[in-house]
């Protein structure tokens, strides 16, 4: 259509302006749709870069280092100079850092202590300058600054004192820092720590709890422990979070590593060699001194020995002389004593002999006297006895013969007579008996008589015997008596004879004794004389000898005294000498030992300095750094896709709106055409109308989006990242692109909408456009169904299908909004529980204990047995965890992958759930191949049974993939020890122990970690809690972005629905008025319209659910990385929420429309069709 170029008349402009004022709601709808879309898109697009800009500003403000250097031997100023001299190095800052331990509530925590960044001659600014949150930086002795993040958690306050444990791993704390107590004077945030991750350490429970800063002078170590380097990579030439920066820094890293060889070489050649030399010198000096000292000691010893020997010799001689003297003296004394003794004995003897002789003589005299007396007595007695015996005999003799003998003879005669009588009686008795016996008849009397006779006989006999015996006895007694008298006469005669002889004998003996006694008396007198002479001579001799001895003793005493005096002196000297020597020896040994220890310490230290190495780390080495750009990217990738859908829907809805508008102005268009306005001028009205709405929308919406979203989103991430306030960076490109796109699209849409009308003649346009004929719809042909519908339902059904385009548009518009909501919620579903799924359902270990490389299989067995016995562990698994690379045919790049090989398959399967994501069927791990994570397979397009190349320990192996397991975080692989052996041909070395605790408790974890960190076999303990939290935080921080998405989608839904329902009502004003006239009540009228929009909303919503799934998948795909899989699963709840929200929005809009509908005047129905 060619139109004359003409100046737009002011009337037309007024018309357009009035149009806008008249149709406020339509204008606002377009304004809002574009505003929301542009604001959302540019706001989100600016969030990622604002986040990055904030971080970059932080990096630059704090002069964050590009490279941090650590060394096994520390650094010296020369190293710093060397580094500084590198071409690309801008600034170098030497620093100190050390891990120390504090104990709080019985829990040991590891603290990383840094020196406060300083300006030195090699750096213009302090590098990694901390942000001071409170107080001031420590600058005096005993002051420190603590990080803000852990301030609340640790319970420390400003002004508190932090007290270190006195020793760290056997090393005194004061060897590392000057004090053990530091007062908190400031609270800081170091740019070295972007997140709350504090990294690992080899001491304590293996995790750094927090960091703090003290002045560099407070470090007691000699060489710098760290060097921070800022290179030209961060001078703004490249994007510091991009690959280019990484490459550049990598190169620089290599340069420094190269330099490190030189520096280490120099260190070894100078410092180390010096030290070695010094050490050697010291060693030599030590040895010399030692020898010298020992020599001296032995000399002293010898002197002492000599002295004491001399002393002993001399004193021996003197002693001997003394001894000799003494001996002689003793001999003399002995002799004297003997002499005295002899003298005494002699005298005694003489005396004794004399006495004895006297005694003998006396005895003899006494004996003689006694014997004479005895003899006289005995003779006297004997004569007396004899006399009495003569007398007695005489008496006895007389008695016997005068009395006894005649008496006995008389008796005997009597007895003789009695016996005779009895014999007569007996005879008589016997006779009588015989007589009796002769009588023939023995009567009773006779018998008695017989027995009586018999008895008498027995009695007689007995008496006879008795008398006879007495007779005999008497006779005998008489004879005996006679004999006795005769005997006694004999004896008496014998005694008389004996006495006579004895009397004579005794007198003889007494005479002899008298003679002897007289002789002895003469001898005794001689002896006494002799004795007295000897006594006086002996006495004189003894006295002379005594004098001699006394003299000798005196001499000896003198000699002894001399000897003792001399000896004591010598001994004292010897003792002193010995003491001096001992002291000297002790001192010498102490000194030597000290020297020796110092030497060996120095040697040990020196040997630890051998094989010196520098470690050059880039920024990613700091915990949390690598996540930053990923997080920013993730926000960015969400904003890549989502807002595009948004704009699409906005465009669509605007098209509908504008089409309707153009239709409404059909007559006007015709009139204007008829009046001669060009097509362009007419079209301009719509373009200006829509364009103005879009322009205003993009200005207001853009401003709103740009000024809110980046702040909100970045500060949401700020919970995770400790970065300073957001630096708003507007992504002008996205803003302009989205605005321009919005405005241009709307204008084009408007042009397109009026294009059809402009082509018609004015006359045709001025004729009312025939209303679209009613048509039977397909549904009507399904009679049973159609007839079953209520009248109004039929009307609704037919209405719905009447304007197919509008029907379609509405459904698409609603569906789009629903889909956006589903996508937002689906994204939430995908990100919400992956941490939970990953760590509570798939990889279920809580801790990783890494084992010392030097540990033998036996050590491992031992530590495993300890772990097995520990009841705090639910499962323990000895395993090999190592990083390698995986690559697959047709893919150039390889991906790093972590292999886990468990020793015990049963335990392994308790900690690693290998299963299919969808079916949850277990994925078997066999000796025939490896199982890898689903995402890895997806990235490389690996199919089951395919062969992949893996690199382990720099060796490449080919192995078969036997399965894929559900996994969300990380690129992981699993195999059996047997398969490992099969492919590598070597025996597997286990390097970790994985454990699962009986309860989820951070305290328990720390306690156990502390328990085992003490063991030599355990180097570090990694807690999965950290990882889980990191991942959860990462995902949770996406939540806000998702919420914004959801909110904006909802907002869009409201606007779209409002717009669509508004159009619907506007189109049917006449109809509504008519049915009102027909007597429909307000609610009935509303329902007549609502039913339709409700059906449209439901249909659109349902379509949106399907579309939302597609959206969600698309968005999830766009944000997932090679090593993180987000499950593309939208939960039914999300669908439900999105659907219900759509319905709710629709109802809200309908409610708003109710009033509008009520306002429709029935008078309208009477007007002619325009």
């Amino acid at each position: 259509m060619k139109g004359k170029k003409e100046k737009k008349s002011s009337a037309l402009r007024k018309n357009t302006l009035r149009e806008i004022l008249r149709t406020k709601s339509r204008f606002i709808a377009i304004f809002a749709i574009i505003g929301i879309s542009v604001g959302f898109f540019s706001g989100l697009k600016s969030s990622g870069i604002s986040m990055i800009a904030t971080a970059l500003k932080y990096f630059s403000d704090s002069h964050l280092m590009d490279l941090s250097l650590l060394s096994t031997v520390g650094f010296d100023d020369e190293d710093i100079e060397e580094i500084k001299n590198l071409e690309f190095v801008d600034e170098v800052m030497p620093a100190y850092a050390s891990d120390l331990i504090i104990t709080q509530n019985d829990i040991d925590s590891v603290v990383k202590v840094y020196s406060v960044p300083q300006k030195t001659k090699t750096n213009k600014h302090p590098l990694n300058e901390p942000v001071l949150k409170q107080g001031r930086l420590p600058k005096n002795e005993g002051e420190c600054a603590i990080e803000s993040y852990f301030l609340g958690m640790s319970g420390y306050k400003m002004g508190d004192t932090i007290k270190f444990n006195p020793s760290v791993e056997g090393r005194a704390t004061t060897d590392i820092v000057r004090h053990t107590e530091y007062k908190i004077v400031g609270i800081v945030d170091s740019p070295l720590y972007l997140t709350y991750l504090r990294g690992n350490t080899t001491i304590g429970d293996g995790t750094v709890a927090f960091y703090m800063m003290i002045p560099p002078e407070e470090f007691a170590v000699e060489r710098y422990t760290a060097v921070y380097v800022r290179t030209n990579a961060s001078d703004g030439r490249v994007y510091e979070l991009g690959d280019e920066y990484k490459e550049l820094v990598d190169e620089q890293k290599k340069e420094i590593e190269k330099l490190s060889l030189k520096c280490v070489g120099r260190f070894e050649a100078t410092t180390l060699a010096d030290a070695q030399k010094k050490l050697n010198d010291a060693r030599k000096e030590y040895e010399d001194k030692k020898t010298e000292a020992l020599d001296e000691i032995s000399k002293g010893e010898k002197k002492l020995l000599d002295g004491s020997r001399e002393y002993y010799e001399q004193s021996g001689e003197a002693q001997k002389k003394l001894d000799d003297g003494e001996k002689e003296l003793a001999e003399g004394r002995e002799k004297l004593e003997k002499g005295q003794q002899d003298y005494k004995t002699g005298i005694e003897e003489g005396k004794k002999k004399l006495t004895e002789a006297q005694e003998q003589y006396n005895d003899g005299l006494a004996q003689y006297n006694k014997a004479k007396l005895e003899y006289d007595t005995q003779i006297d007695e004997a004569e007396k006895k004899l006399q009495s015996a003569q007398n007695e005999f005489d008496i006895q003799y007389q008695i016997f013969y005068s009395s006894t003998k005649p008496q006995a003879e008389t008796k005997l005669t009597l007895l003789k007579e009695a016996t005779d009588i009895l014999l007569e009686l007996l005879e008589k008795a016997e006779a009588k008996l015989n007589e009796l016996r002769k009588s023939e008849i023995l009567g009773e009397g006779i018998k008695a008589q017989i027995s009586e006779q018999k008895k008498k006989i027995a009695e007689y006999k007995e008496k006879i015997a008795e008398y006879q015996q007495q007779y005999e006895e008497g006779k005998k007694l008489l004879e005996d008596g006679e004999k006795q008298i005769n005997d006694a006469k004999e004896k008496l005669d014998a005694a008389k004879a004996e006495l006579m002889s004895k009397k004579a004998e005794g007198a003889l003996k007494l005479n002899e004794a008298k003679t002897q006694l007289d002789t002895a008396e003469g001898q005794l007198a001689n002896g006494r004389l002799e004795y007295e002479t000897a006594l006086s001579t002996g006495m004189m001799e003894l006295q002379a000898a005594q004098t001699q001895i006394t003299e000798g003793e005196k001499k000896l005493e003198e000699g002894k005294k001399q000897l003792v005096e001399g000896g004591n002196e010598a001994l004292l000297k010897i003792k002193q000498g010995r003491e001096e020597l001992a002291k000297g020896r002790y001192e010498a040994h102490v000194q030597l030992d000290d020297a020796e220890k110092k030497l060996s310490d120095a040697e040990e230290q020196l040997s630890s300095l051998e094989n010196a190495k520098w470690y050059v780390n880039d920024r990613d080495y700091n915990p949390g750094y690598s996540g930053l750009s990923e997080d920013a990217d993730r926000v960015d990738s969400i904003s890549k896709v989502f807002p595009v859908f948004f704009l699409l829907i906005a465009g669509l809805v605007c098209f509908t709106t504008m089409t309707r508008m153009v239709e409404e102005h059909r007559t006007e268009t015709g009139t204007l055409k008829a009046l001669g306005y060009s097509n362009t001028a007419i079209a301009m009205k719509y373009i200006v109308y829509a364009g103005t709405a879009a322009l205003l929308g993009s200005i207001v919406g853009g401003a709103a989006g740009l000024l809110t979203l980046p702040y909100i989103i970045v500060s949401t991430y700020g919970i995770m990242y400790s970065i300073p306030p957001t630096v708003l960076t507007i992504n002008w490109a996205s803003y302009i692109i989205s605005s321009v796109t919005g405005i241009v699209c709307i204008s084009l849409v408007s042009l397109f909408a009026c294009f059809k009308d402009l082509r018609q003649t004015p006359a045709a346009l001025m004729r009312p456009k025939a209303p679209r004929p009613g048509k039977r719809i397909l549904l009507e042909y399904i009679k049973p169904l159609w007839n079953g519908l209520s009248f109004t339902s039929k009307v609704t059904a037919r209405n719905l299908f009447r304007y197919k385009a509008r029907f379609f548009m509405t459904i698409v518009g609603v569906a789009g909004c629903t889909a956006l909501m589903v996508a937002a919620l689906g994204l939430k579903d995908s990100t919400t529980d992956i941490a939970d799924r990953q760590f509570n359902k798939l990889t279920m270990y809580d801790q990783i204990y890494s084992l010392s490389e030097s540990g033998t299989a036996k050590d491992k067995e031992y530590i495993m047995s300890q772990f097995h016995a520990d009841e705090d562990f639910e499962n323990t698994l000895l395993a090999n965890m190592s990083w390698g690379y995986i690559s697959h045919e047709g893919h150039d790049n390889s991906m790093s992958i972590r292999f886990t090989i468990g020793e015990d398959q049963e335990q392994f399967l308790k900690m690693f759930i290998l299963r299919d994501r969808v079916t949850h069927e277990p994925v078997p791990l066999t000796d025939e191949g490896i199982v890898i994570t689903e995402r890895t397979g997806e990235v490389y397009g690996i199919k089951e049974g395919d062969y992949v190349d893996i690199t382990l320990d720099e060796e490449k192996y080919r192995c078969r993939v036997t399965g894929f397991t559900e996994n969300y975080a990380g690129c992981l692989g699993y195999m059996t020890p047997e398969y490992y052996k099969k492919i590598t041909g070597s025996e597997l070395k286990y390097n970790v122990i994985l454990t699962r605790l009986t309860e989820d408790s951070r305290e328990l974890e720390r306690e156990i970690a502390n328990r085992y960190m003490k063991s030599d076999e355990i180097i570090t303990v990694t807690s999965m809690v950290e990882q889980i939290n990191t991942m959860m935080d990462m995902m949770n921080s996406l939540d806000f972005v998702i919420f914004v998405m959801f909110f904006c989608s909802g907002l869009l839904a409201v606007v779209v629905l409002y717009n669509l329902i508004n159009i619907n009502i506007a189109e049917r004003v006449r109809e509504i008025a008519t049915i009102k006239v027909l007597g429909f009540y307000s609610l009935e009228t509303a329902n007549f319209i609502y039913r339709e929009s409700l059906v449209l909303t439901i249909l659109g919503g349902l379509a949106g659910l399907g579309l939302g799934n597609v959206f969600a998948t698309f968005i999830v795909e766009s944000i997932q990385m090679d090593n993180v899989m987000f499950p593309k699963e939208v939960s039914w709840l999300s669908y439900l929420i999105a659907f219900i929200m759509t319905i709710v929005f629709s109802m809200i809009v309908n409610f708003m429309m109710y009033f509008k509908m009520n306002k429709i005047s029935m008078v309208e129905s009477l007007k002619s069709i325009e």
Partner: protein
Amino acid sequence: MQKDFVKFENVYKRYKMGEVTITAADGVSFSIDEGEFAVVVGLSGAGKTTVLNILGGIDTCDEGKIFVGGRDISRLNKHDLASYRRYDIGFVFQFYNLVPNLTAKENVELATQICRDHLDSDTVLDSVGLSERKNNFPAQLSGGEQQRVSIARALAKKPKLLLCDEPTGALDYNTGKSILKLLQTKCREDGMTVVLITHNSAITPMANRVIRMRSGRVESNVVNPSPMPIEQIEW
């Protein structure tokens, strides 16, 4: 037949158009008896449509009283007005106002479905002579036919009052004539009270009563004792 079935007493209606107040009904008073065929005639802007709208319950008056069947409808609220329209009024529009998406029969049903006591839609359509076109959509019908549907829709509700707003205005002569014939027949045969407004004075002879309006006032209210059949009227 009730006398003064419809009665306007001093009815005023003013429209405010910005600063200008237009008095559309300026003290209108008239009455119509039951069963009459009344024609309100006047030039455009004479206030006849205003009167009809107020009578039909689609507009309200500012002052005065309107009685229909003895009931004052001038003070009814919105809902009662809707009920009044529903049960007492049949409205025939100049532009038929059929729902384009509904067939002839359905358009009638649209009215009957909300009335308790209504005529069968087929019967009504038969009576307006549209037996053959019941299932056609308005677009498939001629203007006259559409107006017949409109009348059928109004009649089906068994209204007390049939109001017609220039029913022939959009129709050609013959068709208009036949529509008027139909209305006259309905009035005569069924005793329906019909109020018809028109700018065409030529058709007044067919009415029982002719009310002439001018500038919002009733100029005359004349009863025609012998109305002419429509066939005899030419214009």
